[in-house]
């Protein structure tokens, strides 16, 4: 009997020992070998596709380096990074990771020793200026800027024509004029001008960046909501669109895409990364065009803005140098590679020398022969650079609630000062 007991006991101990050694080996595989570079990114059609192209180019010249690309959803990457970095171990983390620009400062400042300084790996002056602030801390460059979130106003030229407008009427618009056009379009065609998700204030972010304003002060930590003229106007315009009844609501990404693929709306003001989704509906070829994004009427606003966009970061570890070298030689300096990115996956980078290349000047039949890539590249250079700071999403959650209050009749000044008070309480 006792023997059996002892056997059970030792089995229990043995099994638990086994399982712990198992988990050890699975977490330590990354970073152990300095010739192996592991990369985390999201979006198989865009980021992952770009990585695969870069990998091919780099491995040709450096056959001894092994590059492993792992696809994860963005939310998962954020969560895994936070968990891994806060535990203080780089085990199980990749050497290169893609981080959205809105979140970059949050990571760089929350985990100051975790990221590898990239200043030496590429020349930051080669990249669009507005990408530098979010990717650096105290003048030290940590991120290698990748895709441009430069925005455009995607419009259905056929609907506009019915309402009596041409693409020329859409140059240098402000948002108030945009609403007026929206009303006419609705009258003439019965189609809504825009589709919005009440839980996503991307449009507000896009609008205030045309005026070089943000949720936070330039220091990146102090909330700047009450008395923020740009934000106030953006809120008023948002409500104006609702009141003008030119908005078709959506509640998630697939509905958003469906709304314009079905031809239910006349325009999509958003980042250029939407191009593949717009073109997915091949039957609408020739009916679309891209106009400059409308601006706010506050002083200094420009017809160029940004929405989203992300950059590459290297984590400190055995293979950090190798990883930085990989990024520097592909995304950091390879002009040919950027031409390939444009032609093969339609990804517009923020590497300025690439804009002169052949692929950028190509006409796009889907957009009625418009040279959209070179238009986007031009607007990219006009974007006002901003420090997005640390708290974009925390503040946005507060604003989403206050926006609903505003739409239900609360006064704009109360809305913004209440939001300010909440933000100050939360971001202590």
């Amino acid at each position, binding site marked *: 009997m*006792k023997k059996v007991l002892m056997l059970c006991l030792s089995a229990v101990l043995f099994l638990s020992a086994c399982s712990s050694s198992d988990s050890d080996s699975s977490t330590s595989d990354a970073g152990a070998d300095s010739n192996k570079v592991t990369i985390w990114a999201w979006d198989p059609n865009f980021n992952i596709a770009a990585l695969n192209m870069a990998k091919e180019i780099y491995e040709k010249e450096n056959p001894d380096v092994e590059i492993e690309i792992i696809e994860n959803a963005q939310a998962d990457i*954020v969560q895994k990074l936070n968990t891994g*970095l806060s535990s203080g171990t780089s085990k199980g983390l990749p050497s290169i990771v893609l981080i959205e620009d809105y979140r970059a400062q949050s990571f760089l400042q929350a985990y100051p020793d975790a990221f590898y300084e990239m200043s030496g790996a590429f020349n930051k002056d080669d990249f669009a200026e507005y990408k530098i602030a979010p990717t650096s801390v105290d003048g030290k460059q940590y991120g290698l800027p990748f895709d441009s979130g430069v925005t455009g106003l995607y419009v259905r030229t056929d609907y506009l024509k019915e309402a009596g407008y041409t693409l020329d009427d859409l140059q240098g618009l402000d948002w108030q004029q945009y609403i007026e056009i929206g009303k006419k379009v609705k009258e003439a065609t019965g189609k809504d001008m825009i589709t919005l998700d009440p839980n996503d204030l991307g449009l507000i972010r896009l609008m205030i960046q045309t005026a070089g304003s943000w949720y936070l002060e330039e220091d990146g930590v102090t909330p700047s909501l009450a008395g923020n003229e740009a934000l106030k106007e953006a809120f008023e315009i948002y409500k104006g669109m609702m009141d003008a009844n030119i908005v078709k609501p959506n509640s998630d990404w697939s509905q958003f895409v469906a709304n314009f693929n079905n031809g239910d709306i006349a325009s999509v003001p958003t980042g250029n990364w939407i191009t593949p989704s717009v073109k997915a509906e091949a039957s609408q070829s020739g009916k679309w065009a891209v106009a400059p994004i409308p601006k706010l009427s506050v002083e200094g606003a420009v017809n160029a803005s940004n929405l989203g966009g992300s950059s590459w970061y290297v984590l400190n570890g055995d293979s950090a140098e190798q990883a930085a070298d990989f990024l520097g030689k592909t995304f950091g300096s390879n002009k040919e590679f950027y031409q390939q990115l444009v032609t093969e996956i339609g990804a517009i980078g923020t590497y300025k020398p690439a804009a002169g290349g052949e692929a950028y000047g190509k006409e796009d039949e889907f957009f009625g022969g418009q040279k959209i890539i070179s238009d986007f590249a031009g607007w990219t250079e006009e974007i006002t650079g901003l420090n997005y700071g640390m708290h974009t999403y925390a503040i946005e959650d507060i604003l989403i609630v206050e926006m609903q209050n505003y739409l239900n009749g609360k006064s704009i000044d109360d809305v913004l000062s209440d939001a300010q008070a909440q933000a100050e309480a939360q971001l202590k």
Partner: protein
Amino acid sequence: MNSKTKGTMAGSSLFPGKLSINSRTKSTFIGWSFVITAVIMICTFYFYPMIQALILSFQSGTGTNLTFVGFNNYTRLLSDSTFITAVKNTFIYLIVQVPIMIILALFLSVLLNDRTLKWKGIYRTAIFLPAVTSLVAYSVIFKYLFSNDGLVNTMLLKFSIVPEAVNWLTDPFWAKITIIIAITWRWTGYNMIFYLSALQNVDQAIYEAAKIDGASAVQQFFKITIPMLKPIILFTSITSTIGTLQLFDEIMNITKGGPGNATTSISQYIYNLSFKYTPDFGYAATVSYFIVILIVVFSIIQFKAAGDRNG
């Protein structure tokens, strides 16, 4: 096994005192080794993290830049409107959902305990089945069922029960209802199983005696069934309360806390503080400890309300 036991037995007859102590220490040793394994595991994986989290809850800062701030995090809770909304929402779920679910489970278990009922097994399985589905999977299905053009709305419209589609997920009131329906569906069967097993331990003679005395079915239910099930009712209401206070998966997957923060729960706020916003693990730990305190308080209240004898 045989040879050794024989040996010991033979030995014990020769040197009774010495060897019995020896074998007693041996069995004590074996006993303790079993206990020690569990104790060490529980200490490393339960108590150590709990203490660390408590220490963490007195710190604040972004990511790894944590500094001690004393009770600041706890005072901050009081002025944090998102947190207060999350607590309110959680209480609404608690006050509305737990009683509905407990009563429903009790009712179903009494129905299914009927001796004359045919195909009991099928009904029991059907009602218990939701409890074995994955939280995420069922949440995603509920999200589709209750979407604006989902099955529920289509049926309600087709049968002319409602004049226009109900905004199950985008209206603050209906979104809460959707969450309550979802968790009730998921957990009623689970609680029912506890009642069923308890009912089977109730002596049928009591019911027979009551019947002879002329008690109606309703009287039997309130005067016999409920008192007999009291400890189980207490147990299920405590576990359901704890479960509701920790509500996360459903909200994360069905509404993401929206519209606005109309359905946010405390646990989802902890997630947002740690992973969605710039991480402040210290404050997140404080919010977690608030849940711990709530659970302790509620459990004490429920023990007291149910009477000490059953506790």
